[in-house]
C-alpha cells in the first residue's frame, strides 16, 4: 500500500471516520475495516519508513479510543510503542578493540597483554593505572583476568566527537546445574563422534 503518515491523517479527517467510501486510498480503507485497532507499523513496512510522526491518529487527537461504525477503533499507540523521532543519536565509532589478560599487578598499576580483536595489529603489553578502573573493575582485577579494552570516538547527537577508552572486565554469568549438565552432554557427544572413550 502507499499509505504513509500523511495519508493516514487524511484518512482520519473528522467526518470521514466510519465512511470508508470517502476515502480515496482503497488499501487504507480495507485495513481500517479489518483491523481492530490502528496498527503499529512493522519495521521495514512502507508505513514504518514514513516520517515517523505518530501523533493525532484519532480524529480528535485525544488519547481515548474512538469507536467507529464498523467497530473499528483508532487509538494513539502507547508511549512505549511509538516510533522514536528520527534524528541524530549518540553512537560509538571503534578504532581499536583489544582483549586483555592481566599479567602482573603492582601497587598502583597493572600490566596486561593486549590482543587485537579486529585482527590487524600484533599483541602489545601495556600498563594501566588502577585509576582507569571502576570499583567493580578493581574487585575483578587478578592475574589471568580477561578484560576488553575499546578505544574509539564517542559521538554525541550533535556530532561532537570525543576520544574515549573503555576497560571492562569479563564477567561470567551464573550457570545453572542444567546449563552445566547440557554442556557435559554435548561434550560427551563430541567425544563419541571423535571415537574417544567417555
Amino acid at each position: 500500500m502507499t499509505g504513509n503518515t500523511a495519508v493516514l491523517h487524511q484518512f482520519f479527517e473528522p467526518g470521514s471516520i466510519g465512511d470508508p467510501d470517502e476515502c480515496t486510498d482503497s488499501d487504507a480503507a480495507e485495513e481500517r475495516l479489518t483491523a481492530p485497532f490502528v496498527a503499529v507499523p512493522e519495521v521495514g513496512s512502507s508505513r514504518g519508513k514514513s516520517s515517523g510522526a505518530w501523533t493525532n491518529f484519532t480524529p480528535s487527537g485525544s488519547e481515548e479510543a474512538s469507536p467507529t461504525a464498523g467497530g473499528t477503533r483508532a487509538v494513539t499507540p502507547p508511549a512505549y510503542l511509538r516510533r522514536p523521532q528520527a534524528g541524530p543519536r549518540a553512537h560509538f565509532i571503534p578504532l581499536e578493540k583489544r582483549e586483555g589478560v592481566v599479567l602482573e599487578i603492582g601497587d598502583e598499576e597493572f600490566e596486561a597483554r593486549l590482543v587485537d580483536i579486529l585482527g590487524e595489529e600484533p599483541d602489545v603489553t601495556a600498563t594501566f593505572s588502577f585509576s582507569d578502573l571502576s570499583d567493580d573493575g578493581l574487585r575483578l582485577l587478578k592475574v589471568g583476568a580477561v578484560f576488553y579494552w575499546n578505544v574509539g570516538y564517542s559521538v554525541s547527537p550533535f556530532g561532537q566527537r570525543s576520544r574515549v577508552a573503555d576497560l571492562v572486565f569479563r564477567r561470567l554469568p551464573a550457570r545453572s546445574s542444567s546449563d552445566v549438565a547440557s554442556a557435559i552432554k554435548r561434550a560427551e557427544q563430541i567425544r563419541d563422534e571423535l571415537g574417544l572413550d567417555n
Partner: protein
Amino acid sequence: MNLDSTISLPSSEDVELHVFGPGYGESLLIHTGQGRWLIVDSCRKAKAAAPAAIEWLEHIGVDPSQAVTHIIATHWHDDHIRGLGETLKRCTNATFVCSNALLSKELLALTEDAAQPLMGHASGVDEIRRVVAELRRRKKDDKARILQLSGEAYISSPVSAKRYKPKERTVSWAYEGKQPTISRGMGHIYARTSAVDSTKNWEIQLFEGALPLANA
C-alpha cells in the same frame, strides 16, 4: 613477519628447527627429514594473519597439506594455540597430537558452555572449538587422526643423543648460530643440522615408554 629470503629449503637429510613467537607462546616448526615437517603449537602475528609456521612453509614453497605429518598441541594457553584451528585445517594429512586433557570431557564441556550466547569468553575458547570442529569434520570423512598422550612427553630427535628423564625439562639443540629475526611482534630463529640419518629415531618419548612418531 619479516621472512628471510636467504633461507633455502632443507635437504632431505637436514634436520631443521624454527622457533616463531613474540617472546611467549612460541610455535616450533621442525623438518624431520625427507621433506616432512611437524608443528608444535601455533602463534601468529595478528588475528588476521596466517599461523607463523604455515606462513613460513608457504614462503619456502612447501605445501602444508602434504608435508606436515604431525601437529602437536602442548597445552591450552591462549598464546600457544592462536591459529591452531587454521593450522589443522591447512595440514589435511597431519595427525593431531595432544594431551588427554585437551580433549577431555571436562575441557570440552567448558568450551561448549563458554560458547553459549551471552557468555563472554576469551579467544582461546573459539580456537579450541575450531580445532574440535575440524577434527569432527575429518572424522565424518574418516580422515581424523588423533593421538592423545597422558603424562609428560618429549619429542626425541636423532640429534638429541640422549633420552630424557622425568622432570628433565631442558632441551638443548646443537646448531649453527643464526641471529633471531624479529619484526612487529613476531620473532623467528632457526637452526639446521645436516647429515643426520633423519629417517630413524624420531619418536615421542613417554615415560611409560617411547612411541614411534609415525611417518616422521
